[in-house]
């Protein structure tokens, strides 16, 4: 398969979660999300129970993909920041290390300037974490080792059939 799958373990997830919680507080944001470029939600911070996070993740990735398409048509590599302003809520979307998308939703209690400033810091920290994940995955690939607790090791036809009952 082209590209590599994203495999995330507890300690990496916790690091990411900490970064998002910090950003959520420091930027005075309503909600903060991290989404992979294929539209899968990785983590979130803030009050998400009124938001359809799965749909939001998929649409954000679609948005970034479409904007990336436009960028290439114009000879740009990528537009790394998108900002949508609404009547009450605003959304700040930024691409981190060509890999993941950081989404910040905020209202009048915060400001675009503050969000941009805080996002920049968080982006650096997240880029580092994802570099670690990538190099770890690379290492595991070279060693050819399968994770001990892999859910796939003993997966059977029956398991799969059960999903569709």
């Amino acid at each position, binding site marked *: *398969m*082209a*590209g*590599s*799958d*994203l*495999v*995330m*373990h*507890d300690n*990496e*997830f*916790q690091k990411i979660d900490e970064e998002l919680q910090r950003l959520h507080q420091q930027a005075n944001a309503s909600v903060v999300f991290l989404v*992979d*470029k*294929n*539209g*899968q939600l*990785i983590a979130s911070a803030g009050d998400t129970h009124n938001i*359809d996070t*799965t*749909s939001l993740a*998929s*649409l954000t990735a*679609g948005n970034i*993909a*479409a904007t*990336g*398409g436009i960028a290439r048509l114009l000879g740009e590599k990528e537009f790394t920041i998108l900002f949508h302003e609404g009547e009450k809520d605003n959304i700040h979307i930024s691409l981190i290390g060509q890999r993941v998308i950081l989404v910040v939703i905020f209202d009048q209690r915060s400001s675009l300037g503050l969000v941009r400033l805080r996002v920049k810091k968080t982006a650096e920290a997240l880029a580092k974490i994802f570099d670690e994940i990538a190099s770890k995955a690379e290492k595991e690939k070279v060693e050819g080792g*399968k*994770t001990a*607790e*892999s*859910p*796939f*090791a*003993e*997966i059977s*036809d029956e*398991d*799969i059939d*059960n*999903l*569709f009952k």
Partner: protein
Amino acid sequence: MSFINYSSREINCKIVYYGPGLCGKTTNLQFIYRKTNPEQKGKLISLATETERTLFFDFLPLALGDIRGFKVRFHLYTVPGQVFYAASRKLILKGVDGVIFVADSQIERMEANIESLEDLRINLAEQGYAVEKLPYAVQYNKRDLPNVAPVEEMNKLLNVNGVQWFEGVATTGIGVFETLKGVAKQVLLELKKHY
């Protein structure tokens, strides 16, 4: 590109429905949406024109159940089938784990099927994928219509590698879950090979 999260014990995979305009990709998703328990599905999102033609994509998240304590989620996408949405189609194929090619069985749509299949090959190749190596199945849709081509002929034209194929009538749901299951199974077995 699957996303395996050991922290929340989730596996997320992406399946894309591909095929020519009006072949029934969105109809497949709509049927799955109607027939799935509310707790297993998210919203069906359709980015469509006023005339209900897909403009960018349809999206349906499905949580099918657990495998060995891991929640298995499939994100189903359709591409816009119309020829001039080529740029959008490419974007949706990014990070795909499995592809379902929906072919329109009507004789007069055979050329459109072939063209779309070629388009799929090119777009996958651009991202370093090959149809032959990807979890992949073909659905011959609209089998209820009077002017359909025989399956043997469609296999010759659209399935030279002899991959898994299904006859379908997406409007009534015939073959819809069978096709999805076929590809989902291939995706999970592919993951088993790697992890």
